[in-house]
């Protein structure tokens, strides 16, 4: 079995510049540009913009995964011939129309994931009762991540039991409060450099999706 990679956080270069809520709506705007862009060329350019932003946000981007995603979308599109025949492989005509349609679709789906990776921050505040519940959940999640090294593969069940008991006591006489410590992270407002970044990406993306139709 392949060895697990150590859990290492990469630097998020966007969080210090753009507030999580602004970042969320910025991402939605870019997503809309990608979805409404006409040709595969525009979608390809936007996909690379998304990739750059995802990398800047410190998220893990597996290039083989996305290459495979685009390849399979193109492949399945080629099974439904459309337009000029490029080459005939036995009974199967490889057509231009199907290829570029698949390429555009593949770039769109890969771009959607990239923009989503870049725009969704863990500090995103969710409103209402669900937001409060989410804050609790996330706090426990962070505690589990902090203590994950106590899990021992050789005595997995026992070590899981111990970890669960420590975080959520069930023994008679144990502390009955099951309230996790919820940290309220106050995020700074979007900085000027953040607004510049938002404008420099959103305006060209908008132009690209409107012009290249």
């Amino acid at each position, binding site marked *: 079995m*392949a060895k*697990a*990679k150590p*859990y290492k956080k990469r630097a998020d270069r966007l969080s210090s510049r753009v507030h999580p809520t602004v970042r*969320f709506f910025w*991402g*939605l705007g870019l*997503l809309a540009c990608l979805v409404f862009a006409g040709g595969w060329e525009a979608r390809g350019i936007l996909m690379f913009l998304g990739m750059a932003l*995802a990398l800047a*946000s410190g*998220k893990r981007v597996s290039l*083989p*995964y996305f290459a*495979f*995603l685009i390849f*399979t*979308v193109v492949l*399945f*599109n080629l*099974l*439904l011939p459309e337009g000029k025949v490029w080459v005939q492989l036995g009974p199967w005509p490889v057509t231009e129309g199907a290829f570029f349609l698949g390429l555009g*679709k593949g770039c769109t*789906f890969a771009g*959607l*994931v990239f*923009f*989503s*990776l*870049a*725009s*969704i921050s*863990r500090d*995103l505040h*969710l409103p209402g009762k*669900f937001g409060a*519940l*989410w804050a*609790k*959940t*996330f*706090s*426990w*999640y962070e*505690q*589990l*991540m902090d203590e*994950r090294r106590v899990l021992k593969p050789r005595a997995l*069940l026992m070590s*899981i*039991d111990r970890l*669960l*008991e420590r*975080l*959520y006591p*069930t*023994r008679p006489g144990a502390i009955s409060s*099951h*309230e*996790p410590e919820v940290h309220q992270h106050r995020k700074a407002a979007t900085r000027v450099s953040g607004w510049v970044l938002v404008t420099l990406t959103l305006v060209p993306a908008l132009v690209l999706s409107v012009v290249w139709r």
Partner: protein
Amino acid sequence: MPRSTKPVRTDLVAFFGALSLFFATLEYLFPKPIPFFRLGLSNLPLLVSLGFFSFREQLLLLLLKVVGTGIVNGTLASHVFLFSTGATLASFLVMYGLYRVLPTRAVSLTGISLAGALASNAVQILLAMTIVYGPASGVVAPWYFGLGTFTGLAMGWGAETFQNHSKWYGRLRGQG
């Protein structure tokens, strides 16, 4: 079905939600042998809580799982989120239905997990055919169901082992 008047145990639901996210992250950190292949570790809390969560609590847990995974992995605004929501909802409805409708001894947790995994796969294939890859992608359905059978059985076995041997879980059920 009469509407439950029992208050929702939000702390416990939040804790199980955190466990789901924790397992999702662990799975994300391991390299995948096959692209798009998922073991579905994050479904384990949903599976083991079938015995003591009400329908409302289970739905809340499901919501925390899909939205939380979307936020933690950053896929909330992509088609991945749609796939995850559809698949989790389908598998939950099948698992919950089987758990509530059939007598306890008629089907084991492994059987319930297998049914849930196959329902999840069916929804994912339908979504892939209609949204991402087109109708031709139906050709991979047999392979996909084969993998789903393997992961469903594996997760069911894991959940059953935990349910039968975990002291923490036993005490929790006793409190329920």
